[in-house]
């Protein structure tokens, strides 16, 4: 029987051939990562919930010598399942914006150092960007993390799930998640070329506008077709990222040549990973992690990319998409950033439009590159200078105002156009602010005009 990429990945970790709808009692995971919103309580609960098990195991084991490795002064210490498969990334509100946040980050640093877990630094970037850039997450892996936008890693063909504090704490102890239903897949088959000024964000907002917030519930969104095959990795990240906005379990793209190129670039930056990663890629050549041609899908939606116009999601739902050409609402804040749209090609698109122009006098433009890698690249390429010359505020890499806690919290009456993924009432500050979502190109054009603007006029031949 033919399988989807989801069934194949789950089959590998489950150790048997599984199909949609099956309940997997114990599902081993490949990778687990935490941000600073959830790590502190998870660390505390992990130690409390499993200390007794460690003490008991220590006393009932015959090989007392081994137990001593875990113990301090004869007391057992709770250890994570495998420190090399866990990492910590402080990204939501760093540099720390409150005493409690700073305390939480320090707790993570201490725990990471005790356990041998990799702890990234403040400003290294947004978790979902960092884990792919750094080669921590690879195609075909099962990945869980304490953030709903873990679906982003689907862009490289990994199966990523957002989980809560408790499930993450359990996974930290055992490297497993429990009672997992193999989800059905909703396939989005995209053909045709985007017109100038139109990008992946406009496509995913169009899809969201059709299926609505609950439209992919219990299912994985698989993006395929010639448009996706020709799409760069950055666009794929944007697509997968917003899958959770239609309540999908996650989003995924079948790995291919583009994925392979992305992994080769990762290896080039991280020679220490080269032998491990190269052999894995050679082994798989991704054939084991691609949906079979006759795999069975719960639903299929076909779209023609050529017909898609720049989209804006109006307040207060990401599924409230309308063509940018039909809207001219005034705005006073523009945010180009977030795990959705702050990578290389996003910043290039925005900078092309802003080059030699000034941000509208009424607009506060915030630009936050997704990672230190992207930040330094944009600095060296002169992209940051274009933003600075236009009058933008450029901040170190983090989630920024999308989280509504620092770096541009909205006041009542503010009207913000953001390249992020959620425009729920109150998401970025006051519930009496209005949030609109768009692509980086639309955001840049709108920052210049002080109102929502169709970016296509900046692409005239």
């Amino acid at each position: 029987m033919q399988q989807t990429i989801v069934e194949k990945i789950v089959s590998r970790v489950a150790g048997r051939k599984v199909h949609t709808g099956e309940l997997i009692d114990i599902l081993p995971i490949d990778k687990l990562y935490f941000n600073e919103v959830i790590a502190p309580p998870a660390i505390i609960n992990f130690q409390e919930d499993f200390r007794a098990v460690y003490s008991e195991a220590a006393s009932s084991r015959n090989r007392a010598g081994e137990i001593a490795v875990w113990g301090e002064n004869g007391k057992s210490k709770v250890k994570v399942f495998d420190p090399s498969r866990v990492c910590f990334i402080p990204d939501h509100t760093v540099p720390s914006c409150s005493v409690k946040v700073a305390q939480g980050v320090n707790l993570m640093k201490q725990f990471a150092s005790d356990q041998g877990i990799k702890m990234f630094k403040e400003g290294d970037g947004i978790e979902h960007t960092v884990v792919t850039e750094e080669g921590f997450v690879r195609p075909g892996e099962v990945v869980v993390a304490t953030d709903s936008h873990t679906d982003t890693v689907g862009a490289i063909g990994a199966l990523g799930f957002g989980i809560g504090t408790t499930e993450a704490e359990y996974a930290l102890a055992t490297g497993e998640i429990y009672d997992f239903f193999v989800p059905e897949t909703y396939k989005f088959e995209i053909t045709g070329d985007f017109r100038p000024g139109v990008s992946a964000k406009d496509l995913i907002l169009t899809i969201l506008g059709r299926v609505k917030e609950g439209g992919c519930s219990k299912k994985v969104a698989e993006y395929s077709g010639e448009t996706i095959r020709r799409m760069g990795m950055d666009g794929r990240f944007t697509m997968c990222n917003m899958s959770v906005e239609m309540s999908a379990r996650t989003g995924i793209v079948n790995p291919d040549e583009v994925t392979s190129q992305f992994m080769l670039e990762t290896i080039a930056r991280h020679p220490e990973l080269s032998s491990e990663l190269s052999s894995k890629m050679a082994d798989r050549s991704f054939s084991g992690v691609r949906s079979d041609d006759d795999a069975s899908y719960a639903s299929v939606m076909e779209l023609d990319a050529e017909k898609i116009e720049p989209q804006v999601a109006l307040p207060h739902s990401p599924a409230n998409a309308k063509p940018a050409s039909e809207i001219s609402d005034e705005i006073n804040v523009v945010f180009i950033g977030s795990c959705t749209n702050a990578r290389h090609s996003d910043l290039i698109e925005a900078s092309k439009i802003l080059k030699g122009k000034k941000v509208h006098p009424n607009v506060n433009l915030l630009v936050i590159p997704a990672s230190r890698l992207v930040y330094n690249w944009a600095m060296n390429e002169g992209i940051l200078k274009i933003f600075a010359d236009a009058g933008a505020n450029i901040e170190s890499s983090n989630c920024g105002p999308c989280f509504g806690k620092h770096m541009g919290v909205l006041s009542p009456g503010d009207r913000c156009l953001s390249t992020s993924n959620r425009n729920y009432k109150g998401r970025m500050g006051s519930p009496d602010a209005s949030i609109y979502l768009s692509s980086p190109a639309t955001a840049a054009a709108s920052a210049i005009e002080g109102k929502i603007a169709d970016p296509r006029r900046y692409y005239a031949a």
Partner: protein
Amino acid sequence: LNNNNSLVSGTVTVKFGNDINTDYIVPAYILQEAWDKKFFADYAFERYSPDFIKTCRANENKDNIVVAGKNFGCGSSREQAVYAIQYNNVKAVIAESFPDIFFRNSINNSFCVVKVESVDDIPLGAKVEINLEELIVKVDNGRIVKQILMNEEERNLLVSGGRLGKVRERLREKLLTTN
């Protein structure tokens, strides 16, 4: 929900529509300000429905039931959303559907979340009894009886108080069999 307790009852004090996201349930700015679950009760629905807390606390002895439409708890994976509801003396949420993350977070906290076909005929003020043994919801002493849509595993987890026991057992096995 107590261990081995399959009966949950209360009064419907709050009713919501579709697509209530976890940002509405508890705003992000407060998530990192405490590591204690009860703390989040004071911020439940702060920016979406400030009356929620007042309504839930109007009568100290009252057991509250929240009723909602489709896709209750969508969006962010923040587990604090479960605590915020749970620690306002809410005994259960009855909704037409839940996305997986919120549903799993609820079960991990032994918080009763049940799905029914339609909530149209469960009015505010109704007395509700949820029977997880028979998988039914009785509205107003059985005036209306609704089927709970829940599989065996989920039901067992809810009745037995979540997964912690099972995970501890798995960890014990792993520790004792590791070379």
